């Protein structure tokens, strides 16, 4: 009887950890799919799109996660195949420096103007 109980506990524990890792993979898959642009319906993410292309990408991402690739490696794979544009959130590289830094520079420039005006008004 004790042995059966022990087996039952081990079985439940294994199943629990399995389902927990399944949920994690599903969450990761959805996160990645929401950051990939569908090249057929270009206003939609692959997550939202029902096109043939989106269907294939969903399968590929699932397969890559199953193969143990990280989120970054999957993005790298897709970028190599389709270019930077496929990602909604492009990574910082020499091609995207302006994209990432221009808003910051404009913000600093604007802030400097406002600051200067305030100092002039105080004087």
């Amino acid at each position, binding site marked *: 009887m004790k042995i059966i109980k022990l087996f039952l506990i081990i079985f439940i524990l294994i199943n629990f950890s399995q389902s927990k890792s399944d949920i994690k993979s599903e969450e990761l898959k959805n996160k990645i799919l929401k950051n990939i*642009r569908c*090249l*057929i319906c*270009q206003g939609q993410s692959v997550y939202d799109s029902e096109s*043939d*292309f989106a*269907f*294939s*990408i969903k*399968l*590929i991402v699932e*397969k890559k996660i199953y193969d143990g690739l990280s989120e970054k490696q999957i993005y790298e794979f897709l970028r*190599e*195949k*389709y*270019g930077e*544009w496929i990602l909604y959130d492009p990574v910082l590289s020499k091609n995207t420096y302006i994209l990432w830094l221009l808003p910051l520079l404009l913000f600093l420039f604007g802030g400097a103007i406002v600051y200067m005006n305030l100092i002039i008004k105080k004087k």
Partner: protein
Amino acid sequence: MKNKIFLFIIILFFIFCFIIFYKGLNNSNIYTPNINNKKDLPIFISKDFYLETEVNSEKIFLDNNFYILNIWASWCVPCRKEHPILMELSRNKSIKLIGLNYRDNLNNAKKFIDELGNPYSQILIDEEGTLAVEFGAYGVPETFIIDKNKKIIKKFIGPLNQKLLKEIKLFLK
């Protein structure tokens, strides 16, 4: 004086923005991946169209030849239009034409080939469309030129036509 310089900078900034946005208006809204990048040939396992047995990509692209991989489907109307071009290409002995049947019903695909002729030296099945993704394709038809070093040197998005056929022949020279 200071105010004038400031005004001048602001106007210059707006002119710069205007030029950027005006140029942007003329750009197409539809993104197309770069078609001229050299890429390594993916390694994959697929199914043969007729034998339905597993085939390794290393055994398909074995010869020291130029290969042309064409992604097609029986439900794709432009594929029907480009088929005569492929038939013409298949007469060229210096290349091997490989077909990749994309997300298709096998019976319909076989009828398509029976009706229009088979230009391919081998046809592979891509039931889920994942193999097309490995090649960097996102629709049908798409055509890839693979050189003797097993690199994808050019891809054509959309159906082939006489103009593109000439371009392919130039590549093969």
